[in-house]
């Protein structure tokens, strides 16, 4: 993202900040379910290629879904005791 020499509309830009912190409990300005639906129902011409999608899922699963060697050893020890 390059913002070099860009003219910004101060209100639009400030609205972006308000949106990005829209969920703060004291100053809630949006309904999160509604906003999430807007995002999820949007048609976007850009999609992550299948290869990179698989890479992301694989990386996340490897990190969070598969027990580490330490946990596997601890569990194995528990079972043998």
């Amino acid at each position: 993202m390059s913002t070099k020499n860009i003219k910004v509309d101060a209100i639009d830009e400030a609205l972006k900040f308000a949106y990005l912190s829209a969920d703060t409990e004291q100053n809630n300005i949006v309904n999160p379910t509604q906003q999430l639906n807007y995002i999820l129902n949007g048609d976007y011409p850009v999609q992550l290629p299948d290869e990179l999608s698989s890479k992301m899922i694989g990386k996340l699963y490897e990190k969070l879904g598969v027990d580490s060697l330490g946990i596997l050893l601890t569990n194995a020890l528990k079972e043998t005791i």
Partner: protein
Amino acid sequence: MTYLELIELIDAKDRRGWENLYLQYGQKFYGFAVTKWSFNEDEAWNIVYQTLETIILKIGDYKIESQAHFDNLVFKIFTNFLRQEYRRMKKIAEEFQVLSYGEMDIAVADGSEKEANEESLKIPFDKEFFRDYFEIEDTESPKIVELKKALNKLDPFEKDLLLLKANNFSYDEIAKMLKVDNNQLKVKHHRAKNKLIKLLQTI
């Protein structure tokens, strides 16, 4: 897949939970970040990765009681990473200029919405404000709090219109989202923006 099924799969460390989380949320978040927020592919990839990672880590900490509760959590996590990346990118930006009231996209076709005394209308967000905003982390700027107060004084339709347009959705897309006719939507947007600016003078 419902949120309960999704949580159950993730709790059971079933890979289908990861896949469905990506398909239901990650894919759209990526498109939204690139198309509407102009992030490049690497930045968008990071935002989505961190969002999904945090959702997976956090859902075990909460007793999720409804779809709305789940949506709230997902939206909060996503916008948090979107905000972090946006701040980071803007912070390293070299130069930008802020439009004056007269240059802003507010006037309607006949110019009637432009006030004769436009000089007296102050835009409370100047270049200094934006520089500070990108430098100061974690605390909410008092000016953004004021903006939120002003937004909450608008009609819900006007508020949604302004926020969706700020998100770079087109008038066609907004018309579909808000289930309204596209006719005059641009004029309504300009009027809502003008109304917001006037409200900001009074807060």
